[in-house]
């Protein structure tokens, strides 16, 4: 899975774009956004908690896109070939 990473999180990945392997449990169960974030955390420990709080909610200044579509639901399935883009919304000084 191709994931585009914003600058505030590149201290984890070292790259603006990474590829992560997301386990597929069954052919009829496509990977989800939650699965992608778990895979990212497996490769880059600590990264998920900076985006997702302890109640499983996306933090206020983080936006998650599947191709062009915004989602805040970690259960959202990700079609084959899609790109996940993480955006850290700039705010304040």
């Amino acid at each position, binding site marked *: 899975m191709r994931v585009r990473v914003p600058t*505030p*999180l590149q201290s984890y990945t070292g790259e603006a774009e990474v590829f992560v392997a997301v386990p597929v449990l069954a052919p009829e169960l496509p990977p989800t956004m939650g699965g992608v974030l778990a895979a990212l955390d497996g490769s880059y420990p*600590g990264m998920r*908690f*900076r985006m997702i709080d*302890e109640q499983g909610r996306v933090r206020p200044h983080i936006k998650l896109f599947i191709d062009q579509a915004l989602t805040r639901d970690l259960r959202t399935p990700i079609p084959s070939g899609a790109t996940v883009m993480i955006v850290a919304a*700039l*705010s304040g000084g």
Partner: protein
Amino acid sequence: MPRTKKPARPVTAKRVRLLLATRKGLWTLTSDLARSAWKLAGPQFLGHVVHHAVADPRDARTMLAAARTGHLGPTVFRSLDAGKTWKEAAKPPGFAEGSGRVVDHTFWLTPGHPSEPGTWYAGTSPQGLFRSVDGGTTWEGVAGFNQHPKRKAWCGGDQDGTPDGAKLHSILVDPRDPKHLYISMSSGGTFESTDAGADWRPLNAGVRADFQPDPNLEFGHDPHCVRFAAGHPDRLYQQNHCGIFRIDRPNDRWQEIGDTMPKSVGYVGFPMVVHPRDPETLWVFPMDGTSVWPRTSPGGRPGVYRSRDGGRSWKRQDQGLPKAQAWWTVKRQAMTADARDPAGLYFGTTSGEVWGSRDEGRTFRCLARHLPHIYAVEPG
């Protein structure tokens, strides 16, 4: 009051170092033992809000730093080589899943008792208490407080409280007993546990709460900073929203000691520092807490106030500080002392300056300027 020779903080052999936690990262200031030539180094974590950075006095190499950025969730970084390199906690402080509560930032870090070398405590905003037993790698909530049936009554809702969120701070571990703990909260007051945090009780009698309908509440107070007297953990000093107080245990009632401060200056402030050896000596840094709470030095004339008699009287110390038009103030973690003799006194300002005295506050000089807003100054 007996005076002890035992230093309250570690003395490094060759240098004095300060950890400067700021709104934009972590810096250090280092000098030789004469404390005459200071060298600024950093930043580390540039762009992170570093609320607190603390060195472990038990091993002189471990450091923890509580950080977050505007975009990302809060975390804790850990160094095992005195700040040269850092690694993120595998499990930072976070409330229990299903509790509905979310840590906005870790605000306070306290090393545990010397008999528990891997133990650290953390206080958060919203107010929560966390403990690590592996040197800061993984953190668990202290259920005896975070899930106490009276916690919400003691603290109010997470949206109540001070600007930037109510904070749990001033975590004190009795040097005689690792199970004897004190915590203080900007929205709740001071609490005591004698069973390592399994249960808690309020300890606020005698502390005024002028902002409440009932000024004699059991809880609901706003302590800004609470410290043990040097070498005498039965005495605690408290800088509060409504005054300066002292308690001598086992007495359960605080005694007001801020009413002898000059009326033109007042008794409001955030930081409080105790002398490293003399339990009768402490310093506060007053700020303007009148009207809408400007949170500046009163009249734009900053000054430290020192008591050498346990708070019965106060003396202004401002030699070397700006005489006028200096509108900064000092946050609750941003003032500290070293363990040298005479003790050094240091504070960082909201305008990014670090001021220091190597003669217990008699004279000050500026050690660094042009830094970001300083949140904490600790010996390193």
